[in-house]
């Protein structure tokens, strides 16, 4: 089985950030592997450990992305592709365009992505990429199995879990609820230095500036407004419950 996981480098959400005049400020030198993508790498590694095969990863970004690529290689991916570009200002569709160009001449049994990225939380790239490549896909996967040349994907739906049989090649976007990504060992980190990382440019992929023009743009950031303080009801339990029900019906209008 040959799998490829699309990984993204995101700002470290542990580090402080702030919003000044509608613009987001953060320490651009602190970045990590998107946690959802880490689960996707873990899911892919577990599949090939059970059924044989290889896991490769692809990432888009500036030179600093090498650290994130190395983390995925340290976890156990065998080969990486680094598409060198400055993706600031891109939207999900642009990313999907670039990834689609990358995958067009390559063949994999399945492509995995995280279900979303921690920085934008858009959750669109995987879906758009499946559409561009004309692949069947399942989103928000929490379980994966391989049987008779097909992937059996457990998907977390709104009402419950759905078990979906996916013909291959196909694409799956993976939830962080699927697994706890392994912690790379020191040996893995040291050996990752010797694993192949192929550098690609946008022109290598035949992409023109026109093709990369984003369809949407972020016009500004606003902090989440602080939540209004709650109201505390005091008194005898029977009275308090009666009052609570009244408030839920008349003020909150949820009953």
């Amino acid at each position, binding site marked *: 089985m040959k799998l490829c996981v699309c990984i993204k480098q995101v700002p470290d959400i542990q*580090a*402080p*950030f*702030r919003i*000044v005049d509608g613009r987001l*400020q*953060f*320490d*651009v*030198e*602190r970045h*990590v592997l998107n946690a959802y993508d880490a689960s996707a790498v873990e899911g892919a590694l577990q599949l090939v450990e059970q059924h044989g095969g290889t896991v490769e990863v692809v990432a888009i970004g500036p030179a600093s992305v*090498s*650290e994130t690529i*190395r*983390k995925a290689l*340290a976890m156990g991916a065998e080969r990486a592709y680094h598409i060198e570009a400055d993706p600031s200002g891109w939207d999900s569709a642009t990313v999907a365009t670039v990834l689609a160009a990358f995958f067009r001449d390559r063949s994999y049994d399945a492509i995995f992505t995280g279900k979303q990225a921690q920085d934008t939380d858009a959750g669109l790239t995987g879906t758009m990429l499946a559409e561009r490549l004309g692949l069947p896909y399942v989103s928000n996967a929490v379980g994966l199995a391989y049987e008779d040349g097909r992937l059996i994907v457990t998907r977390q739906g709104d009402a419950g879990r759905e078990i979906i049989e996916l013909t291959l090649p196909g694409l799956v976007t993976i939830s962080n609820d699927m697994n706890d990504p392994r*912690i*790379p*060992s*020191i*040996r893995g*980190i*040291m050996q990752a*230095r010797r694993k192949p990382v192929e550098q690609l440019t946008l022109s290598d992929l035949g992409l023109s500036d026109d093709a990369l023009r984003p369809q949407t743009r972020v016009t500004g950031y606003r902090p989440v407004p602080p939540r209004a303080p709650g109201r505390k009801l005091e008194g005898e339990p029977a009275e308090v419950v009666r009052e609570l029900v009244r408030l839920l019906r008349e003020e909150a209008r949820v009953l």
Partner: protein
Amino acid sequence: MGSFPFNPDDAFLFESMLKEEDRLIMETAREYAQSCLEPRALEGNQQGIFHMEIPREMGELGLLGVTIDPKYGGGGASYTAYGLIARELERVDSAYRSFMSVQSSLVMFPIEKYGTEEQKRKYLPKLATGELIGCFGLTEPDHGSDPGSMETTARRVDGGWVLNGTKAWITNAPIADIAVVWARAKEHPDDEGEIMGFILERDMPGLSTPETKNKMSLRASSTGEIVMEDVFVPDANVLPGVRGLRGPFSCLSNARYGIAWGTVGAAEDCYQRTRRYVMERTQFGYPLAAMQLIQTKLANMLTEITQMQLLAFRLGQLADEGRVTPAQISLAKRNNAGKALEIARMARDMHGANGIVGDYRVIHHMVNLESVNTYEGTYDIHGLILGREITGIQAFVPRGNDLPPKKKPAPATTR
């Protein structure tokens, strides 16, 4: 001027100076320590338990012997990486860092540096995986800061040496499979002898390792004695590569280097927990963080921590360039352990009554750091090491105040 927000955990952005590989190793150590050690730390301290799965877990991730040659199972990584691992383990509990320091710096290091090829092949790979646990015997009940006057002897016999003596305050001794022991070796009974290193194995007759009970500090670390009564050690277990105090001192330099880094983690944890606490705790209608006294204390803590971080970072660079000296290590160990202890005491104070409770974890660090400030060269002894470097005059032995010759103690009298 940059427009980044101030990072109160890394005020001078020292982590962004780290090399990619070192930062990835730091992340591995941090993920392990926070997910696997932090949940055990309070129980380990309160019940006095060193969880015996920990060596294998650390071994699996490669956290033991990270600077040792990979052909012997080590990590082959930098000294900076070793320091960063120490920082992450000690962020949870100095006891866990102590285990790793002893295994890596005091057992694996001397075997790699002074051991034979057979010894390296026999011991290092299993020490790296945590299958074997090691300890290091230098300190004796009556010889702490002055190990040169040790009483443990090794007497030459056919095919090896016979060791007699007691080593005290030995981290890992009760759980160790092997012990690197330093003894005064005498070819003939009348020789003055010279200090040599020996690798003792658990099943050697005459060797016992009683546990040191009732410790109030480093309680999640196993501490004991190494008692040797006519222990025969074959020639194959002698470390041939070194004679004299230089041997154990080079190991200590290595371990002290790790302490200079580890204590940064303990101090950071105390400061971060305190920062969260004073933001939430309200008195007189305001969070404690709104009080001037509290703010300047936080500012002092962060200032000290920033200096500790930068000192450790530079020490790491010097170690990786092969230029680090024992005096530099003394300065950093002394400063960082001493400052971490002050920060922990301040953090304990700022938590008020809650600071007494283990769940807030600051008193846990505080009592641990009392040991860390003392072991591997006390704060004052490192001051004397530096004093000698600065002045060229040793002040370990008081001069001009020669003591009268030792008399036999007078028999106890009763009136």
